[in-house]
Every structure is written in C-alpha cells, then in structure tokens.
C-alpha cells in the first residue's frame, strides 16, 4: 500500500510538492517509486533552468523502465538534490524525505490545480 503525506500537493503524473514560502520542493510519490521498483538513475535538471508547469524536468530509471518527470509548477530551479546522483535508492527508501529539485515559483496559484493527499490516494486506488 503506497503512502501519502498530508499537507503536500500531488500531480496526476505522480510528483509531490512541498511548499516553503515561495519555494516548491518537488519529488516523486511513494506510489511512483513502488511502481518503478529499485531505481538506478535519477536524471535531474540544472540550477537556473526555467520550467513551465507540466514541462519535463528529468527522469527516473529502474531496471524495469524509465519514466519522465513533469514539473507540477512553473518557476526557476534553484537547487537540485545532488545526493541522488550517487544514491538514487534514497527515493526507494523514503520518497517524501528526499526531494529532487527546489523551484522558485513564478505562479504559486498553479498549486490550486494539484490534488491533496486524499484525492491523490483515490486516484491511485482507481489505477
């Protein structure tokens, strides 16, 4: 059973967003890491990249598959989680404790189109 965490925002493409002021921490959900299996590589954006909501910003790879990552929010990448370069398994260990990138949001109103934990949970159940 995949976990969710209250207080985060969730996208249909299985990313989560944690808001700290105007900064969005973005990661993949527990459902996503569980579906992918053991991750072997995380492809991340570069700092200063400009992203539009819904735009591809990287990918996760496992022995089963590769899956693109889509940014739930628009803005500028201000930091990436370099630990994931050598230790992609951190996302398997705890998908919510390990963010992938931090985005300085240009349009925080976009958060309203994302799901809360219970809506996301319901979507995954439907899968």
């Amino acid at each position: 059973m995949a976990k969710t965490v209250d207080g985060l925002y969730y996208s249909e493409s299985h990313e989560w967003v944690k808001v700290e002021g105007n900064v969005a921490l973005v990661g993949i959900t527990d459902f996503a890491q569980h579906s992918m299996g053991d991750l072997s590589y995380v492809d991340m954006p570069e700092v200063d990249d400009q992203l539009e909501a819904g735009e591809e910003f990287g990918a996760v790879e496992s022995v089963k598959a590769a899956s693109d990552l889509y940014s739930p929010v628009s803005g500028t990448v201000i930091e990436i989680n370099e630990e994931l370069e050598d230790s992609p398994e951190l996302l398997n260990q705890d998908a919510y404790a390990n963010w992938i990138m931090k985005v300085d949001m240009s349009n925080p109103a976009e958060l309203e189109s994302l799901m809360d934990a219970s809506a996301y949970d319901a979507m995954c159940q439907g899968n």
Partner: protein
Amino acid sequence: MKYYDKLIFDLSKDGKQGYSLPSSKWSASVGELPSGLCRTVAPELPQVSELDVVRHYTNLSQMNFGVDTGFYPLGSCTMKYNPKINEEIAAHRAFASLHPLQPASSVQGVLKIYRELSRALSAITGMAEFTLDPFAGAHGELTGLMIIRQYHVSRGDLKRTRIIVPDSAHGTNPASAAVCGLEVVQVKSNASGLVDVEDLKPLLDDTVAGIMMTNPNTLGLFEKDIRNIASLVHECGGLLYYDGANMNPLMGVVRPGDMGFDVLHLNLHKTFSTPHGGGGPGAGPVGVAAHLVSHLPVPKVMEAEDGTFYIADGACRCPSAPEGAGVFGKECGCMPDCVCGCQSCGQISGFMGNFGVLLRAYTYILMLGRQNIRMVGPLSVLGANYIKESLKDSFRLPVPGVCKHEFVFDGLMDQSTEVTTLDIAKRLLDYGFHAPTIYFPLLFHQSIMIEPTETESKETLDGFIEIMKHIAAEAATDPETLKTAPHTTPVRRLDEITAARQPVLQYKDMCI
C-alpha cells in the same frame, strides 16, 4: 547445468598448439617485408589444442537458450522456429562466396532475388515498393521516418515536425523519431486498450508529420478504428507509419496497405523466420505506398527492359540532366519519370542490407507458398488465445476478449503473497522455459506478455500452461521459492540493480 564462463585466454598454456604446419619455402618471404611493418613482439594469441577449442565453445554454447533448445514465448518478439533449410540455402557456395563489390553483371541471380523478395513483400503487405537495406527493425523505423520527413520537405511543408506515438507503442518508436529529429507526441489508449480516437483528434494539425502505429498493438489487440484513424491523419496532411513488429498474425490475411498505411517496416527476424536476438544480423525492409517511391533510399536494384538487373546508384541517367544530378539530393529536373535519387531520403546501407538474412526470408516465403503463408496468422492467434483462456483464472487479464498473436497478463490473480511478475519469470527458467516479456507494455504494473507463435505444437503449449498453473499454486503455498528463483540454472537470481548502478565492464585484470 554446470556453470562455464572461462575466456579462451584462461586456457592458454605456452607451447600448446592445435596443429603444426610443415616448413615452407615461402616462409622466408616474411623477411623481405620492410622492418617497419614487422612486429617485434609476438601477438598475444591463446595457445590451445584443438580439443581445448572444441570443448570451450561447446561449453559456452550450452550456457545459451534459444528456440532450438526450448519454448521461447517472448511477447512482441515472435521467436518462431527458424527452419534449417534457410541455413542450407544461405550457406550454399553460390551465395556464401559472393563479394559485395562484384559487378552487377556477375550477380544477376542475386539481384533477381532482391527484386523477387521485394515483390513478395509488396504482395504480402499491399505496399507499392520496398527497400531491403535496413539492418534491423529500428533501423527500418528510422528509414521510414526519414522517408516521411523527405516527403514533407520535398513539398515545402516544413512545419511538420511532430510525430504521434501511442502510449502502448514499442519503445523504439519514440527513440527512432527522436533520432530522426522529430518531436514525439503521445496519444492515450482507451479502456479497451486501443488508440483513443477522441484523444487523437485534438493533436491533429498542420505540424503533424505522421503517426506511428502497431497493429495489432502490443496488447495483441487489433486497432479496429484504423480506417477512421487513417482518414483523420490523412485529412490533416500527415502520413501513417506501420510498425511491422506485430505483422505475424496478419500475414496473408490483412494488408497494412489496405488499412491506409503509407510506410512500414517488417522484421524479417520475427515474421519471416530469420535468426533473432543476440545482436546478430537482422533485417528491417521498408515498404512504401506509390506516392513515396521516389523517397526510398539509394542505391536501388532495378530491372531493365531487357530483363537484366542493375544497381541504380542514385545518379540521374536522363540525357538532359545536369552533371551530378540525383546524387546527394541534387535535383535533376526530370521527375517524376526517372529513377534517380534526387528525391531520395539518402543512403542507409553500404551494400544494400544483410543479404544472407534476406535470402533466409526469401527461402521461408517460397517454402510456405501462397496458400500456406495464410495459415501463419490464424495458427499464431489460435495458440495465443488457447494459452490466454487456459490461464485467465490464475492470472489477471486486464483486457478480456479475443486477442491476436499475443496477450498481456497483469501479474497473478492472487497477489496476496506479493509474488511479482519478475518472480514468475525467474521461476519459469527452473522449468526449462524462456521467460516471457515482462514489465512491458508500461500500461500495467505487472505486465507479462506472452506470444507462442504458430510453430509450437499443442503439446508444448499444454506443457507451458501446466507449469504456469503450477507456479501460480506455488505462489500461494511457497512464495519464498519463487522469490529466490531460479534454483536450477547455471547462475541464480542476478543482482540487476547493482549491475545497473555499478557495472563492472572489465574481465578480471585483462586489459588490452
């Protein structure tokens, strides 16, 4: 089975040799070579006896699994039996001793085979003309997309840079499109596992170069809306590309040309029984509809009016053409009457493909003949449905109904013991079967994709069904045995994740 992974160098002992040659008066000639061309250190060749060599390669070959050793139900790969007569013909001295640079006048029979194979493939698929040049299915995809791009460019329609690919497509489709410089746009499947026409419609505009489709698709389902999809795509000015990976169930029954496809590739190593896998030579001929013939790659094998064959290198032969016309896209101005290459997508193979592979496919077609080739599809479909219906109480069948040559289960019916598709696949190895395709298509989380092909007997299918039911029972009573499988193979469960994260690519301390 005993594990064997030695290199031939591991067997080497100084002074060992397989045979010795008598001294020759010609050996002195080596001394006449300029000293700069002679080696100063002996080459590091393995020193082994003939028996060492025989045992080494026999042992290595036994570490392999192929269609000749057992059932190989690898979905979307069509691992059918490769009849041995294909090999006999390909090994015949008349073919095996050919040189790629022989003049056309000395290889008339070979050029005739090129033309006849092209014509047979045209008859089977309903396409106007073929190139036999591409070396593999994905190479055929790239060639086909280059033809599509060339078609739009030649009409001055430069906006068409997007290609539509369904979410159930083989991974090579978006990859080939990306290599061809096209932007990939995904179209969703509907609940029945078919391309969602309503999702497709808004994507169709004047930036669409075409759509790549596999029919039947990777769920083994016939895209029954294909005629409708073809008109929609054609109306917006795009072309239809047919991925021939799943041609097997349709051969001799339905033709992609009649469905409305403009370009296709065939995998001769799937549908036409040439050797498959292991990175060996493949062949992915590309067929086109009449309006795309001028965009085929060069050189082409042509038949002259007197019945002889020649290789058209792309140069324009028309008397009025400027010098060099037809080569590397230089316009000749004589179109559409001449056969030159000025409208061609380019050259994609140095010597017109893998002739040995083409020859095997030609043999296969002739051996089956016009009547029997129609039995391939129905028998492959019957085998797949027989397995599906026999196992659907033990495994989850996400899309019920009649399938074509392959189908997809979504893991075990009872997943309470958390036995995964990977565990099932590994356990099958213990029972002497090759694993099916797993975790593809990506539409489901526990995909098991099974394709038996028409060459397997009912006894083989029954044996497989029995073992699959047995594994499903084991999953309930003894899940640990599955989670640690395989147990009888030369190597046990491999650590795939460490192999991906920290690959060791060097054998011991060998360094060249």
